[in-house]
Each structure stands twice: as structure tokens, then as C-alpha cells.
């Protein structure tokens, strides 16, 4: 199976390649990609250099142009595709029909991957993208169980890629406006969820309140570890109950499901975290490289557990929807 790893900077790209990534995904430093954070991402020159480095080390580079083009500015998204192709990218990851259409019509040699932001989860939707745009790989929404992925793979004729580690969207990707409702900026509108400029940590006698655009997302006792106030990971009150209503503040770790995902017909495993540092990239990629190699060599689950236990992501982890506990 192919290991697809994140890079928010050229340094992270080199770190991922060195740690054993088969492919790196990254984006341009603007709103055309879904990790549009300050100081993150690549200029065209940096991308070209990154592609040269990756290719020299036998790795591929996939460029995420996976936001929805804004009205009156579709040209910027088309230009990003042209630049990615010019830099020698191995594939473009896209979600917007306008961007997919541009790749299909103008870059017939360029591999096209369907972004998770398109949230294509049925054989019919996937079939539409494959037949209309010649999509070669579909990144699966993080709401499917392993059984559902296996059934889906049996009824489609295209590669699939599944997230195995990192941040977890509990909402259907590309269909969530929670962030813009509070802040005016969202993944679809601006390539960013719960944007940092709207975040505040306010200390009072009860501890620290993490707020987004003034809405209290969570509260921490003095000295307790805090979290980033991502809307869907907050504590809220509904029906007189206060709880992590949408999702606990956990991150995805499907390391133990690599062999199940392989059996379900998944082609590539994806690690989330273009906004994370080199240290994260190095450790997670290294662990998954070993685990994937162990699975490919037919090692048992105990061996894989041992490899993954060394991962220092911190915080609580979940297998997300894969284990079907959501149903």
C-alpha cells in the first residue's frame, strides 16, 4: 500500500521523504488549498524544488488544489493547476467541479485525485467523477466504516485512499459551514477551519476559556492541558446535558486497521497534518512506514501494535468511523 504524507513546508516535505513516505501532498500558499494557515505551504519555486527532491528520492508529490474556487476568481484556481503541472507534480487533488473540469480538459496527462472535500461516498457519485473527469483515485470521506469501504470498493473501479492518522472531521467534509457561521471563514470559503485569528484563550478565576469569535468552545481548569478550539470538538449544552456533543477532542489513529483496510481494497493510506511540524511528520511517517512494511510482510497485529506504541502524538485517539461504532 502507498503511504501518503503531509507537508506544510519544504522542510516537512524533506522530512517526510526521509522518513519513508511514498508520496507527499502539499499545497500553494493561498486559498486554493484547504490548509491555508499563516506561514504555511509552498510557492511555485518551492514546489518545483520539492518535486525535484522527492523524485530524486523515489517519492511522488500530490498537489492539493482542493478548495472551491471563489466567484469571479476561478482563474486563480486554474492557474494553480497549471503551475502544479509545470512544477512536475505527479497528481492534483481537487474537489470543485470547475477545477476538476479544468484538469480533465487541459491536462490530460496529469493524474487527478478526488479530494475528501468532495465527500464522494456512493458508487454513483464516485462513478460520476470517474466517468466525467477521469479521476484515478478517490480520497474517502472519514465517515465510512471498514465494511462500507470494502463494499464500496467492490462496486467501483478506481483507486481509493483512506485517512489513517491525525485530525478527524466528524462532519461530512466539504458540507460543513460551522466555522464560517461563527467566524466568516470556512474550509469551503477560505481553506481554513476555526481560523487562528479568531481564537482567544481567556484566563479567569475558573481557568482558561478557549473561544472562537467570542463563542466559548471549551474551558480548562488551571494547569490542565488545553486544546485548539475547533468547533466540532467543543463542549456544548444540549437538552440540559453538557458534553462533547459532536466529537470528543480525539485524533484518528487507524494504525491497527492497516491490514483490514488493505483487505477492504484500499490503495493508499493518508496521514493528516499539513499544519503540523517536522517533528510530527518524521515520527508519524516513520512509525507508519514500519507498520505498513510489517503488514505487507505479513507480520501479526502484536508486532504492529509495538511499532505504533512508540508514537508520541499525545492526547486521546480513536479509530473514528472505521470500527462502525457510530452506527
Amino acid at each position: 500500500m502507498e503511504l501518503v504524507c503531509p507537508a506544510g513546508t519544504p522542510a516537512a516535505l524533506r522530512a517526510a521523504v526521509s522518513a519513508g513516505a511514498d508520496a507527499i501532498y502539499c499545497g500553494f500558499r493561498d486559498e486554493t488549498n484547504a490548509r491555508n494557515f499563516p506561514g504555511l505551504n509552498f510557492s511555485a519555486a518551492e514546489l518545483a524544488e520539492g518535486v525535484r527532491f522527492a523524485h530524486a528520492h523515489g517519492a511522488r508529490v500530490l498537489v492539493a488544489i482542493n478548495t472551491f474556487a471563489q466567484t469571479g476568481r476561478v482563474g486563480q484556481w486554474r492557474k494553480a493547476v497549471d503551475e502544479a503541472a509545470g512544477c512536475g507534480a505527479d497528481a492534483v487533488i481537487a474537489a470543485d467541479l470547475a477545477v476538476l473540469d479544468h484538469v480533465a480538459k487541459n491536462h490530460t496527462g496529469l493524474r487527478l485525485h478526488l479530494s475528501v472535500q468532495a465527500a464522494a461516498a456512493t458508487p454513483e457519485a464516485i462513478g460520476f467523477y470517474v466517468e466525467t473527469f477521469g479521476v484515478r483515485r478517490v480520497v474517502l470521506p472519514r465517515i465510512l466504516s471498514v465494511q462500507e469501504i470494502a463494499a464500496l470498493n467492490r462496486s467501483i473501479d478506481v483507486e481509493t485512499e483512506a485517512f489513517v492518522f491525525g485530525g478527524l472531521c466528524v462532519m461530512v467534509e466539504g458540507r460543513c459551514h460551522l466555522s464560517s457561521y461563527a467566524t466568516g471563514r470556512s474550509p469551503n470559503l477560505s481553506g481554513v477551519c476555526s481560523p487562528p485569528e479568531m481564537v482567544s484563550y481567556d484566563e479567569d478565576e475558573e481557568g482558561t476559556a478557549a473561544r472562537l469569535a467570542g463563542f466559548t468552545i471549551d474551558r480548562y481548569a488551571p494547569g490542565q492541558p488545553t486544546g485548539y478550539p475547533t468547533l466540532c470538538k467543543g463542549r456544548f449544552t444540549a437538552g440540559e446535558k453538557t458534553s462533547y456533543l459532536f466529537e470528543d477532542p480525539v485524533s484518528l489513529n487507524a494504525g491497527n486497521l492497516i491490514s483490514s483496510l488493505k483487505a477492504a481494497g484500499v490503495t493508499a493510506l493518508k496521514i493528516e497534518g499539513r499544519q503540523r511540524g517536522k517533528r510530527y511528520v518524521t515520527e508519524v511517517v516513520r512509525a507508519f512506514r514500519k507498520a505498513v512494511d510489517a503488514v505487507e510482510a505479513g507480520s501479526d497485529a502484536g508486532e504492529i501494535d509495538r511499532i505504533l506504541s512508540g508514537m508520541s502524538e499525545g492526547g486521546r485517539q480513536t479509530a473514528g468511523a472505521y470500527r462502525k461504532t457510530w452506527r
Partner: protein
Amino acid sequence: MADQPREGELPTFVRVLFPPVAIAPAGLLLTHCVRTLARRQPNLFDRLGEWRSARYLVAPSDLAFAFIVVPDGEKSIVHVVGKNSPGSVDVAITGPLLTLLGLLDGTLDGDALFFHRIISISGRTEAILALRNTIEDAELRPADFFGLHGIVARLADAGILNGLSVVRWLIAGRAHATGKL
């Protein structure tokens, strides 16, 4: 309580040894170092975008003074200020000195330190994020700050980084010994 060093902090006597007035000239030296770095790696600061002209307050929790940093390439400024009178800043970052140095060379993971409250941030979060990502990509070594080359640079890097990790280890050991961790 206030006088007791917290996790990862230098011993209290360091604060007494280096009052702000004694350290003020270090601002000139550091300004020179950052500008030298900017001359050698002019693209390094591009990532900061609009935050090049932001005023960052870097306040080591175990020292009596703090730094104001404006990371504007060859126009960069570093000066030493008293902790209680930093003037207006866009964003402030506080934490043990050795931890802050670990962030600079990428030894430590800033996200984890932040969420575990070892460092704290106030003001424009996006400015510190831009700086964090810039530093991440810069892959700075101690020698870069002093404009050193070749074997001297390698020796300086090894000496400084090893020295820092020894001090971190000593402090962690002391904390263990006094049951602080």
C-alpha cells in the same frame, strides 16, 4: 511559590544574576545576528507575509527580562525590555528559556508545548503561527545566528545543542529529585 522554578525552568539565581539593565546590550548583538541571518537567507522571512512588521514579545519565564522582536528581514529589531513594561506588542509568548530555544531549532514540538501549558501565548495567535511555520521551514542551527561557516559552524552547533540538551537533562533531573514532575 512565585520564586520556585516551574517545570523546565532555570534555577532562580539566574534571574538575580541577570537583571534587565545588565543584559540590555544583548539587544544590539541579537539585532545584528538576525540581520546577518536575513542577509544570508533573504527568502527565509517571506513566509511571515504581513507579520514581518509585527512586534513579538518573547518572555522567558525564568528570566527577569524579555525580548521584543520585529522579524523584518534586514530591518529586524531585537531589544531587551523589562518584563513589566514591554510597551505595545502584537503577540506575546512566554515559557522557560531552554524550551523557547528548543522551539527555535525545532528540537521541540510547539503545538504539544502549547497545549500542555508549558508555553503560553496571548494576542494575535495567527502571528505566532506564521512565525512558528517560518522557523520550522528555516531549519535553523545555532551557527546561523552567528554567521559561522564550515567546520567552525559544525563545532558550534554540536557544542551549543549538546550543551542545551545537557542543561535540559540536568534541570529535568533536579525536578525529578524534588518530586516536581
